[in-house]
């Protein structure tokens, strides 16, 4: 995505399978025995496509994404298979996973303020990501960073690069997180509730930006959210999760027009509809 990047840019073939997750189970030990927070999840992401993972809090959405990154919290173990471009990720050591993180798979988190280190300038935090994988001089990394900030439409990027996270608004911070994730041109971008902490107008801008960048770079995306309205805007395929299990999987069209599972129907029925003023909330369980 950046012109000064010394790396050869491999444009992913649209429609080729980028990520293949099979029978993914994530287990945490508790005093009452092991608990499976994700049970037997299987899905795939095609290059250039977006998979929306939908579910309530605690449904295992975030754990699924952390398992792909190899960043499960202490004690968590993942079994099954996660293949990126045909290469198995679960068997890799932490050292090998480090080369995948950021470079092949990048992540954007929910709360951009707490996700940025308050002690360092945003420029330094983006440079750091770039240099961890590409090395090179700080000057080059800084140029890449400024370009990345311009791409996510931070005005006056060459000056703002030296500002600290608290000097930006919520929406701008999320743009910065996106710039950080995309400066390495990852094959897969995992966005974990990227718009939840933002107000609706800013949310729309961020979604638009993500879609635009995705079109330009051909990055595959996993978009995690509890917001069905957002999923309907961004996703090609949808995976619905509940209590760690996948309830339903299909194209966005299928899920929204012909939901099969009772839970999916209940979720959709819970959406407020503008054309039904006397709508009442229906049970979801």
């Amino acid at each position, binding site marked *: 995505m950046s012109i000064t990047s010394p790396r050869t840019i491999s444009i992913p073939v649209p429609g080729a399978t980028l990520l293949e997750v099979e029978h993914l189970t994530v287990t945490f030990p508790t005093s009452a025995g092991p608990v499976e927070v994700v049970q037997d999840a299987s899905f795939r992401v095609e290059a250039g496509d977006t998979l929306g993972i939908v579910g309530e809090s605690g449904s295992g959405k975030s754990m699924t994404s952390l398992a792909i990154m190899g960043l499960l919290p202490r004690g968590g173990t993942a079994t099954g298979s996660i293949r990126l471009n045909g290469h198995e990720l679960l068997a890799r050591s932490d050292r090998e996973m480090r080369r995948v993180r*950021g470079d092949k798979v990048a992540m954007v988190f929910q709360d951009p303020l707490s996700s940025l280190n308050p*002690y360092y300038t945003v420029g330094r935090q983006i440079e750091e990501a770039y240099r*961890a994988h590409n090395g090179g001089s700080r000057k080059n990394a800084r140029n890449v960073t400024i370009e990345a900030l311009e791409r996510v439409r931070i005005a006056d990027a060459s000056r703002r690069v030296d500002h600290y996270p608290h000097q930006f608004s919520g929406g701008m911070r999320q743009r910065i997180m996106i710039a950080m994730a995309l400066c390495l041109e990852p094959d897969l971008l995992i966005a974990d509730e990227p718009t939840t902490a933002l107000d609706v107008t800013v949310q729309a801008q961020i979604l638009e930006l993500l879609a635009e960048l995705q079109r330009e770079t051909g990055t595959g995306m996993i978009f995690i959210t509890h917001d069905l309205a957002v999923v309907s805007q961004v996703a090609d395929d949808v995976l619905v999760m509940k209590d760690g299990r996948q309830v339903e999987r299909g194209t966005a069209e299928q899920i929204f027009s012909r939901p099969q599972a009772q839970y999916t129907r209940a979720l959709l029925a819970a959406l407020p509809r503008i054309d039904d003023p006397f709508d009442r909330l229906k049970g979801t369980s």
Partner: protein
Amino acid sequence: MLFYFARRILAAIGVLLLISLFTYAIFFLLSPDPAVQICGKTCTPERIDQIRSQLGLDLPFWQQYWQFLSGIFTGRTYGEGAAAIQCAAPCLGFSFQTNEPVTDMITTRMPVSITVAVGAAVLWMLAGIGGGLLSAVKQGTGWDRGVMMTALAGISLPNYFVALLLQYVLVVQLRWLPFPQSVQFAEDPLLWFQSYLMPWLVLAFGYAAMYSRIVRTNVIDTLGQNFMRTARAKGLDAPLVLRRHALRPSLTPVVTLFGMDFAGLLGGALITETVFGLNGVGKLTADSIAKNDQPVIMGVTLLAAGLVVIANMLVDVAYTYLDPRVRVKSA
């Protein structure tokens, strides 16, 4: 920024003035008449009156306070004529028990206290930060428990006990160290080092115990922050994540604490200096309290208060550099 510093300095001066006023008031109101003490056993009421007027003790409180205060800046003369005693600026008073200006008494003992404080500070910062980090990173392991048990001991054991225990073990039983002596560094560097080693260790143990607990809590707290997850998600390796992203947020609050503790120690380590027979400001304080030498007690009280106020100011200034969030708000 300049405005901020100027405001801080003005505030510090105000606090120092208030402290001097209160200290002076306490000594003025509560202490027995110094003139009676100076006069000794063969004393007549006329003699006491004479001493009182010589010392300015017959003046009203505000005038006495003013004399004391202006003495700090311009020096003052006690009495008149041939019997007059000069006290050069900065005059913190005059001890009629030792016949020395308080300022001189403090400045001759200051190097010892500085040596004690600096050596102890180096040790406790190393041990406290190192121990706290180790404990946090190896949370829940034997390392963690070991460090925290040691820290508990360091916090619970009073330092006069540790001092005596250390002296008994290292000097009397094992004979690893000679009995502490007051030597200058230039005279005998080895003996100098050996003499200061125990005071350093005793003081450092207590502080390191506290610091390691605080550092541990801070690091564990920082490790759980979202930006740590971001750092790992970038593909940084674990030591770099720890060094670059966890250390600074964890250690910045320690700066505040260090400023206060270090300044406090410069004002004299009362117990440790006394136990090891070190002739520092702490020992001077203990001695003058024992002899009820009021001008000296007041002098060291003001010194200690002044050091803490100055340290507090320096910490605030340092903070504006260490924490970008403070920096921008204050600008």
